[in-house]
């Protein structure tokens, strides 16, 4: 494992346009500082996040992947996040079975007004992942 103090994890966060992306914006507007670990990928609804996108992110080298969206009942498209939750059950089960550490995959519902919550989430996940080190699925030569 590389020198933990220098190594910064790379976290891919899938955010839905209406809520969690807005939450990330609100974190910025509130100047809630976060480590530069996270790369947000915007989709219109968390329901657009295919478990296969999550796998792809891990295979490309993500140390953690975050699936985020609106709180249940708040989905702009009525029930997209409920479908996300269902698919996430399969994803979670598989990731557990594969032996990937559970700290590397998270599902979180964050509303557009929850800037501080978003920032805390990023801070927490980054700290946890820093502790457990780079993802075992990370290809050689990817930082």
């Amino acid at each position, binding site marked *: 494992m590389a020198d933990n103090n220098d190594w910064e994890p790379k976290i891919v966060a899938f955010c839905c346009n209406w809520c969690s992306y807005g939450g990330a914006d609100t974190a910025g507007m509130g100047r809630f500082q976060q480590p530069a670990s996270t790369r947000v990928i915007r989709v219109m609804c968390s329901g657009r996040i295919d478990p296969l996108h999550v796998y792809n992110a891990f295979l490309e080298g993500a140390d953690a992947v975050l699936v985020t969206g609106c709180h249940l009942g708040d989905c702009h498209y009525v029930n997209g996040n409920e479908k996300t939750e269902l698919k996430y059950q399969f994803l979670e*089960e*598989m990731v557990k*079975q*594969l032996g990937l550490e559970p700290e590397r995959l998270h599902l979180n519902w964050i509303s557009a007004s929850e800037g501080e919550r978003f920032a805390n989430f990023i801070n927490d996940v980054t700290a946890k992942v820093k502790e457990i080190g780079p993802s075992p699925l990370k290809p050689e030569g990817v930082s």
Partner: protein
Amino acid sequence: MVEVGDKLVGYATDDEVRKRGASGGLVTAVLAAALEKGMVESVVVLKHIDEYEAVPIITDDVEEVLASTGSMHSVPVNLAKYAVDRKVAMPGKPCDIKAVIEQSKRNKIDLDNTYLVGLNCGGTMPPVLTKQMLIEMYDIDPEDVVGEDIEKGKLIYRTKDGNEKAISIEELEEAGFGRRKNCQYCQLKIPTNSDLACGNWGVIGDLAGSATFCEVMNEKGKRLIENAVEAGRIEVEPASDKAIAIREKVNGVMVKMGETTQEKVFTQMPDEERLPYYREALADCIDCGGCKLACPVCSCGDDAKCTLFHNLGDNYKMSMFHLVRLLHLSDSCIGCGQCTDVCPVDIPITRIQMSFSIPAQTRLNYKPGMNADEKPPFFEVMIQ
């Protein structure tokens, strides 16, 4: 009059068929009658080539149907996909029937047009390994085999010279032979998901070996039996209580064996060993796509997310093709073993898939292939 739920014992009226049949030729006669009387347009059967080889055919020729009688433990093909987009009757092991039901959930098979004559199954054997087993453990030349039976946990081979040799299946399997690995932990031995559940368990007394125990599972099964009786192709009588009890008992023993083996095979590896194990196991994959083609549940066609998301150049990381299939079949893998059979580099695909599917199906409280009205959880809109 036959009713749904009836447990019958019967046989083919044609002596030839009855004699050549594994247990009285009832299944063959029922299929033939269904074809004859226009209940279906064709029948799927296995055409014998020799003891270890047969090919599935779709035939509208009654003679071909009758000629196919006899069970073949060393031909582990899955017939489900032959029923797609056709009006057929077919025999099937429990896993064939499971696959048909799964295909119907995906709109590929119309169960109203498909007659399923289920066959009890204790397990099938891989042909090449079986020939090796005959040489090594039975000291028999595979070419000399004229018949085989499984009775009371023993695998019996009969040779040209009239001799018989039996070895317990447990002994064979400990030596690495015997049934295919997935059959060893399979827990559906009587095809309760079919229209007729047929087999030789529960056939006792002087009918032993020359009659079939047949349970009428639903309306379609009832029609099949009534049709065959009307056509004069079979004779049936109600099974005795003793026969029913014996069948239950044998099934119980077989299922328990399957449960025990499943526990042994699927022990949880320590967390840190799992990922390296899966990566190594899948590393040999040459992307032939055979497992997808052979899988009787897969109904996606040539292009599907498993192929579209996969890139040959990225294979050094971990095969996306397999990750997608592992995910998409978490709830629906029926453990038929076809994928392992066809893999040219001997990846134990079934075992790998089942190590994901068993916990998933337990967690979701869902059994694939049993009830056509039960949607796979992955297809649901939200958590129930």
